């Protein structure tokens, strides 16, 4: 489950970025050649955001046929 450590790093990166804003949507680009499973990423996102500023945010995954694996954008208020 390397998706778990990916999501832990994502939570750390996002919380350091947003200040006191509220995150509604986290949008990722996940390529089919990236070696990470969207299903497992969703599962780990829920686990890792629990009790953080990201709790309750939706995870949107844009699937591509590349090897990209990146955090694209956030929707916040």
């Amino acid at each position, binding site marked *: 489950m390397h998706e778990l450590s990916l999501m832990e790093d994502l939570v750390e*990166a996002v919380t350091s970025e947003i200040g006191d804003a509220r995150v509604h949507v986290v949008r990722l680009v996940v390529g089919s050649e990236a*070696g990470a499973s969207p299903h497992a990423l969703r599962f780990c996102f829920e686990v890792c955001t629990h009790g953080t500023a990201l709790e309750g945010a939706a995870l949107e995954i844009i699937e591509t046929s590349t090897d990209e*694996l990146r955090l694209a954008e956030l929707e916040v*208020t």
Partner: protein
Amino acid sequence: MCATCGCGADHEHAHDHDHDHGHDHDHVHPHEHGHHDHSDADRVRTIRLERDLLAKNARLAAENRRRFAEQRVAIFNLIGSPGAGKTALLEAVVPRLKGALPLGVLEGDQATDYDAKRIERAGGRALQINTGTGCHLDASMIETGVRGLDVPRESVVFVENVGNLVCPALFDLGETAKIVVMSVTEGEDKPRKYPHVFRAAQLFVLTKIDLQPMVRLDQERCFAFARQVNPDLQILRVSATSGQGIDAFCTWIQTEATRAFCDARSATTVTP
């Protein structure tokens, strides 16, 4: 590049998310960075981050690569399923290589120090890394591990990754080369079923070839599959039990380590 569809164009994006406010946009939505000073505090805004999810590991791996070049340490990352014969290969290699150059072994497993003990019994210097629930080694574990081994200049360090063909392929450790290890008792279609690791590796070692008469694996088909996935992949066949191919493997390691030391030397030599 266009971040939403990855198309390579710098076009404006149409947004399909709802904005929770009453007035119209009188501007093209330019994905502003940082803070807006709109009075409407509830307004949804989009922050573009464009961050590689593996950025943290990639940064640590780059630091490792620089540090290992400075220290002239060549790192070989062995990846294979549990039972592929990674530890047995190292047990056969350590006694032969250790007279030629200083060696260290980092053993990755979820639990126990059994493998580090096996390497020590074979005459090697080893440190065990236990990942607990973790399925792979990452760059920070290798930094700590190599520091713990305290090897001299111009050493080789073998990293035996956690038995797993999936996750370790994704994590750059700052290694000199990844080596994928598979045995003749596995399916010949494994390179097709787990292409990421075969694509990331520089060398494919087929182990337990002394068992070939007992099993059905078609080696030529297996190598053809591996080369479909990675045309540059080098291939060696070994048996830790009979010793067949072990010298060729040692020669490969010495050649690649020497190349890494030379590259590091020329990279740090300042030409006037």
